């Protein structure tokens, strides 16, 4: 087996598929990037058993064959090289599935062991929903939701972003049980029957790194068990989280009698500063009239902080506690300068949203308060 390409081309493809390889694995099959030569095309593939990335790389070859190479070794070599022409010659050892890859560049020759593999049979999967999406729109939706995904495995469905697709709208929802984000955007296609899928956060974080083309295709299989993102020369396929997503709509407060308008960056900076003075990371926000007080204290150390900010507020005065980090994260994911905070009581969910929503986009972030000992 022989093929020739450039360092940059193959490094790009190896880098993309390696995103699917887990950081630590005890199964050597997951360590490998699989190379398949067929019809003059080199296809690279890597997986962790649940997520797979396939990429194609332009090569010059007349050969066919399938091998596996340890991804880390190949990637480290390619990273250390400058862009130049490179040839891969693969020879099989006698009476064995093992072989050696000889890599030749203008600088020298390098040898890496490999494993000869059989051509895998393609599994048949029917994708009955296909959406053409603008990459930047989808990535924006992912970026605004993924931060709220849960990272502990207690409720697996919360470890992903729920996508609801209906009519000409796609809605992303993420929650870790303490905060919740719902971001809604328009799409070009019309989906009549409401579709709900939960995409693991790890898949979306890989998508963020892979998606470079202007548009991408999102496909959902008929069993609603896997999703496929097809981009230029790269396909990311992954198993969906099949556990039911909690009924998030039921926890979004529909009534609120306290409304506060404020400058997003002012609150963000204050919360960051004041939060540092808390013993367990909680802050107290007191809104009364046109002034918001943000307070924190560490009673054990006798440390405390208080800042006052101007705001516009309607409703009865309220004192409410929060985990400062949740407020920081919520405010960091709203683009607008001015925000609206909707409150009802010190123990009900508080809604953060842009004061002037972007055209055809709806974003709300819920944060559950911390009941503070007074």
């Amino acid at each position, binding site marked *: 087996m022989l093929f020739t390409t450039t360092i940059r081309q193959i490094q790009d493809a190896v880098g993309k598929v390696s995103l699917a390889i887990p950081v630590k694995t005890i199964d050597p099959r997951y360590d490998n990037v699989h190379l398949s030569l067929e019809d003059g095309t080199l296809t690279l593939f890597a997986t962790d058993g649940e997520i797979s990335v396939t990429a194609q790389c332009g090569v010059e070859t007349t050969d066919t064959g399938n091998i596996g190479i340890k991804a880390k070794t190949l990637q480290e070599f390619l990273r250390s090289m400058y862009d130049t022409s490179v040839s891969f010659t693969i020879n099989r050892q006698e009476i064995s599935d093992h072989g050696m890859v000889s890599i030749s560049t203008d600088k020298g020759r390098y040898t890496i062991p490999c494993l000869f593999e059989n051509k895998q049979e393609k599994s048949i999967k029917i994708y009955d929903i296909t959406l053409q999406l603008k990459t930047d729109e989808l990535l924006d939706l992912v970026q605004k939701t993924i931060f709220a995904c849960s990272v502990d495995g207690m409720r697996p469905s919360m470890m992903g972003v729920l996508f609801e697709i209906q009519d000409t709208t796609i809605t992303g929802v993420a929650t870790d049980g303490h905060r919740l984000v719902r971001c809604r955007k328009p799409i070009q296609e019309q989906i009549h029957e409401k579709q709900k899928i939960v995409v693991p956060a790890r898949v979306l974080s890989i998508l963020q790194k892979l998606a470079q083309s202007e548009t991408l295709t999102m496909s959902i299989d008929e069993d609603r068990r896997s999703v496929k993102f097809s981009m230029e020369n790269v396909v990311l396929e992954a198993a969906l989280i099949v556990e039911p997503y909690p009924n998030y709509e039921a926890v979004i407060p529909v009534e609120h009698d306290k409304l506060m308008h404020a400058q997003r960056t002012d609150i963000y900076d204050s919360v960051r500063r004041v939060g540092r003075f808390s013993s367990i990371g909680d802050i107290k926000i007191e809104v009364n009239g046109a002034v918001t007080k943000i307070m924190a204290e560490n009673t054990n150390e006798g440390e405390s902080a208080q800042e006052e900010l101007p705001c516009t507020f309607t409703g009865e005065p309220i004192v409410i506690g929060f985990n400062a980090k949740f407020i920081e994260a919520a405010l960091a994911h709203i683009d607008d300068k001015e925000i609206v905070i909707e409150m009802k009581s010190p123990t009900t969910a508080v809604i953060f949203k842009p004061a002037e929503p972007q055209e055809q986009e709806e974003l709300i972030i819920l944060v*559950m308060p911390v009941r503070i000992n007074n």
Partner: protein
Amino acid sequence: MERTVEVLSPSVVEKIAAGEVIERPASVLKELIENSIDAGSTKIDITIEDAGFSLIRIIDNGSGMSPRNLGKSLLRHATSKIQSADDLFSIGTMGFRGEALAAIAAVSRVTITSSSDNSGMGYQIVSNGGEAEPVSPFEHPKGTTIVMRDLFFNVPARKKFMKTRKGEQMAMLRMLEQLVIPFPSIHFTASFEGKRTFDAPSAETLRERIADVAGIDFAKGLIECRNEQNGMDVVVYVSTPEQLKERPRFQSLYVNLRRIDNDSVTFAVREAFSKYLGASYRPSFFCFLDIDPSRIDVNVHPTKQQVKFDDERSLFGFIYSAVKRGIGDVMVKPDHFSTPSQQQPVANSPGEKGVELSLFNENAAELKKQPSAVDYSTIFTTAQPQSSLSSQPFQPLQLFRPEASDEPEEKRVDSKKDSALQYEMHEQIWDLISCYQIHGLFILAPIKNGILLIDQHAAHERVLFEQALEDLKRGRSASQQLLFPIVIELTPTEKSVVESGKDYFAAFGFEIADFGGRSLSISAIPAFIRDSVVVETIREMIRYLLDGKNPESFLEPEKRFAAAFACGAAIKAGQKLSQEEMNALLNSLFSAKNPYTCPHGRPTLVRMSLDELSRRFLR
């Protein structure tokens, strides 16, 4: 003057005898339920009022009693279960001594109504402190209804030694949970103080019955081990390695369906487990041993909670090999050791471009065992999503506070020397020091004149204990409200522990409400603990409180609950800690009032000086 020897009157003898069988309301309940089981009932309904002191009523649909048997049922040593002394070695029923009903009748007011046919007519006998009236006809469907009122009305001294009503109620619930497990075909219901507290519908398998008592998730994960040899047949349901705890929820042995206490069996199960997972863990188990009645003597104690085996050594080997083989079979299937959450959420994903992913999926569960495989914090490119607060098990709660310990009940470890150590540590911890975690148990920290070894669990327990006491003093700690309540499934006993200590749980930051059945919903949690440890924390707290092995100094409920909370919420053995977390723990520990012992008096740290190290290396 010499006292004369007199033969006691029958009524005094009965009361003395009753004392052996009937210690408390739970003993009455046990004896009455066993009678109903022996009568071949398929439904047994229990009603308890005033923790059993005012009323215990059992209604069953068993074989019932004829007027002749009913008339004799309250007599001492009157039984239908054995005829001669030889029968003692072939007992196939729960009761046999003919003591229980007589003993109960001697210390309470008992009414038994029973019918042995389907005519709708039966007979009733009424007894008042052992004085029985003649049997009279009474309407009753087939089966028996026993109503016991005013327990110990004629022995008030005994009443004085009873625990609180809550304690007695809990004892009855625990007894009930243990008693019903080997009888899955019987439908048990129980109401305590007008509230339906227990409902175990008839089931087909032991596992289903265990699920009724211990919860579905717990029962699902049990490993079934079997063995059969020389007239002995055993089935052991033992917890999986993930369910292993230092304090197991259940360790129940049933010999011929009778709940028995026996250390050999417990030891055999632990030994079999330790082959795979080390001796520090104690598995939960349910062991059902079927043995030829002639090989055991159940007539050891009136409460029948102990039996003698003819060959205890072979029993040990028999149970040991059953469990070892059962676990061994599972150990070779790696899937069994991935957590349910890792197994369920994702579907298999066939590959793209001709590469069959399913080939890899068989090992996906094994792969997923490594939590670090999915480390979003290193993967996400977006703004830091997860606060450090929520990703850490604890926070550096306090800084240095150099007062001396005000807790004389706990032993101090070389206080003079260690007070200097406290200053020294404090100085160092202002900046991060390099700590090393050893076997997920201890933290090794260099100090100016040597090294410190810290027990991570004991240290964190101390920090949380002091914090919990402080929270109790202040009334309530900061509590993070949850969008979606966490539902926890408990046994009736466990649920009643939480309900009885609701105020304490609230003071620590838990907001807990009844969710119906055996479940509770948690709508707020202490602000500093992760969601993923909430359920385990509550379970640990319950286990701690049920264990009852508290130091005398914890007789005050505040300290008992604070210690339970500290024990439940503290980082566990085997939990990996980052540098920051280790430093935060040390920081908090050396800010505690008494950093040298855990709430139970175990040392939290061991110090080794450079001199000592040098001596060991013969320098």
